[in-house]
């Protein structure tokens, strides 16, 4: 019984690690509730109506990353908004470009990517304030809000950056708030509830507008364009998977603003989150689904743990393969050592998010850049510890080795490596722990692993989901640290 369970766990880990040979449809999403819901809806539609496999790469950070991934074929589709398509992707504020038919034609011609039918609702950007404040100051429109100068506002980073966001809006209405800060969308509502901020950007379909008793103000000068949500798909994908287009259009025009607000609210309120809401929408029996979801979360944790171990293991292995010989070479050439260590130190000081971001233009998103970044972080401790491990060997030992005519390879295997082993192992141990930690951040660029539930959890304000990534990640770091500590004791040559 026990052994069969063990075999099952190992099998799941192996399966998680191996990418299936059959190509699956990769669905991406941006990191906020509605996009998760829509992406999940598309996934479940494919899963229930076709035999194609689906891979989820949810929570990709921002439009740019999603679209780059789509362009490069790293994902096949994701839900996008027409306004964003025109303004951010095409960089055009021409009203004509924003019309759906024109937009679709431009995308097909220029990118080989098409817009399927919109779901029906218009998720425009909007500013919200607490209902109480709105009543107190009689706020209905943006023009009225613009007269208030003693308010603190916090906006999402994308809203702060985009021309069709805060910079344009501020000019259009002449807003002058006391303070304007950047914040993650999911945290903005907590901040507004705690009274830290009074104004934030929201989407017209946000469930939180109902939940937190916020007032959506009226865009009385019609600054914001239309944001119709629709699946953005590669044309190649549609050809490759016959019947896919029809399936993805199942909900075309069937979800209005009110329904989307409701779905978003449900997704945020229920502990199990968006997959369950989507299943309910596809009218499956909920009891069955609930049991399934607990299992789904457990297997998700196992799968992501396996993925995390695989990422960490591969990166550390690569770092060993490069770092140990590198350290050995450095110990034979002290001048080069100083230069190489300097370079490795610089790499180490680059903030991980920045490094991950910098790798996107070179390597895209997903597995490759994550591995490269983790490798770069892991190599320094191994390189440094190999080098110092060898250099710190007592001079009397190296002198005897030289004086008795050991060749440099004999000296390496008989003396240098055994003596440096504890130091090298300490380096590998440090690297592994760094890798497990940084590995959670790699989920930002769609590498998978235990960072994925953490990031999704933060986006959805779902503590359970955050912990289901954070706890296994911490345990993983502690366990690996402990195990490698024991190995270090075992290989210590100086009995």
């Amino acid at each position, binding site marked *: 019984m026990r052994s069969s369970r063990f075999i099952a766990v190992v099998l799941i880990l192996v399966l998680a690690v191996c990418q299936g040979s059959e190509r699956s449809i990769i669905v991406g999403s941006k990191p906020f509730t509605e996009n998760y819901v829509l992406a999940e809806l598309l996934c479940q539609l494919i899963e229930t109506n076709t035999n194609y496999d689906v891979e989820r790469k949810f929570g990709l950070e921002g439009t740019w990353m999603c679209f780059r991934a789509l362009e490069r074929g790293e994902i096949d589709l994701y839900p996008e908004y027409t306004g964003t398509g025109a303004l951010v992707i095409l960089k055009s504020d021409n009203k004509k470009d924003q019309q759906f038919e024109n937009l679709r034609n431009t995308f097909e011609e220029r990118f080989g990517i098409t817009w399927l039918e919109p779901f029906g609702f218009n998720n425009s950007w909007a500013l919200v304030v607490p209902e109480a404040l709105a009543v107190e100051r009689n706020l209905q429109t943006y023009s009225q809000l613009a007269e208030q100068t003693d308010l603190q506002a916090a906006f999402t980073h994308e809203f702060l950056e985009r021309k069709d966001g805060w910079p344009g809006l501020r000019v259009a209405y002449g807003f002058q708030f006391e303070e304007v800060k950047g914040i993650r969308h999911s945290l903005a509502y907590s901040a507004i509830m705690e009274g830290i901020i009074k104004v934030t950007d929201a989407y017209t379909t946000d469930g939180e507008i109902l939940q937190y008793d916020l007032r959506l103000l009226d865009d009385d000068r019609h600054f914001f364009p239309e944001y119709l949500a629709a699946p953005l798909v590669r044309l190649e994908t549609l050809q490759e998977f016959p019947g896919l287009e029809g399936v993805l259009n199942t909900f075309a025009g069937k979800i209005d603003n009110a329904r989307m607000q409701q779905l978003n609210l449900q997704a945020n309120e229920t502990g199990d989150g968006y997959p369950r809401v989507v299943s309910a929408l596809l009218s499956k029996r909920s009891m069955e689904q609930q049991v399934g979801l607990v299992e789904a979360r457990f297997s998700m944790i196992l799968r992501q743990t396996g993925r995390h171990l695989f990422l960490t293991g591969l990166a550390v292995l690569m770092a060993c393969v490069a770092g140990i010989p590198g350290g050995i070479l450095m110990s034979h050439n002290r001048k080069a050592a100083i230069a190489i260590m300097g370079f490795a130190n610089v790499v180490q000081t680059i903030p991980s998010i920045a490094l991950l971001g910098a790798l996107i233009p070179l390597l895209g998103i997903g597995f490759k850049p994550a591995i490269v970044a983790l490798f770069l972080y892991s190599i320094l401790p191994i390189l440094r510890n190999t080098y110092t491990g060898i250099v710190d060997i*007592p001079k*009397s*030992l190296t*002198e*005897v080795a*030289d*004086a*008795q*005519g*050991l*060749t440099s390879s*004999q000296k390496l295997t*008989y*003396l240098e490596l*055994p*003596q440096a082993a504890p130091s090298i192992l300490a380096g590998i141990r440090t690297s592994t722990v760094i890798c497990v930690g940084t590995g959670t951040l790699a989920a930002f660029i769609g590498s998978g692993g235990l960072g994925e539930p953490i990031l999704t959890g933060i986006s959805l304000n779902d503590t359970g989901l955050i912990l289901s990534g954070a706890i296994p990640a911490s345990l993983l770091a502690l366990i690996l640290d402990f195990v490698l500590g024991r190995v270090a004791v075992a290989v210590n*040559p*100086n*009995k």
Partner: protein
Amino acid sequence: MIRFDQVSKFYGSVPALRDFSLEAEKGETVVLLGLSGSGKTTTLRMVNGMVMPSSGQVMVRGCDVSDWPLIDLRRSIGYVIQEVGLFPHWTVAQNVGMLPKVVEWDSKKTRQRVEELLELVRLPYSDYALRYPSELSGGEAQRVGVARALALKPDILLMDEPFGALDTITRHHTQTQFLQINEEQNVTTLFVTHDIQEAFRIGDRIVIMKEGCVVEMGTPEALLENQESDYTQELLVSVTLQFSGEEKDDITR
């Protein structure tokens, strides 16, 4: 066996050894005696090519050191230093068997040789073979060091203050033992020390060095009878005092 021919060594413009000439016969033990900085270690390390002369010629077995394949030369010369330098992660048997392993003797032959060598330095194989260096006393460790140096039956042995770190009594015993071994093995030995009594006890010939130059050289007896320089005279006062005691037997052995 070993010949220095007007050898000088400069580090930059700093002379470590000047115009040094010496010939050591087969089986002879030549002691280089001097204070630190007198150039004795530099001289020693020229024999196995750890230091190359700036000018002059060092001949080993009739062949210039710079013409020797270095690895072969070094394997044929035993090397013992004050810090011993036993590999801490190897047992006594592994340390003594280092060179046989390096030249790929089979394990039976290696084991035989290690047993023989430990016997020679009076460390019973059954007691000591499996010990790690950290489990040895200073004297025991140095005897293992000597055994290791003798593993491939070298005809030349270089010893750099080998007994310098030992306490007086242990040093005395170890010296006695070394003299016996040296007689049995008939090895040409170059022995560096700053300990005057040790020099007179061990050397067939003594070279007194100062600031990279030879002050005087000769057999212990000759040096005791007649000193040409004041420096030697000064040095020898302590030895002469010792000689009146019961140690004379050992010294002239």
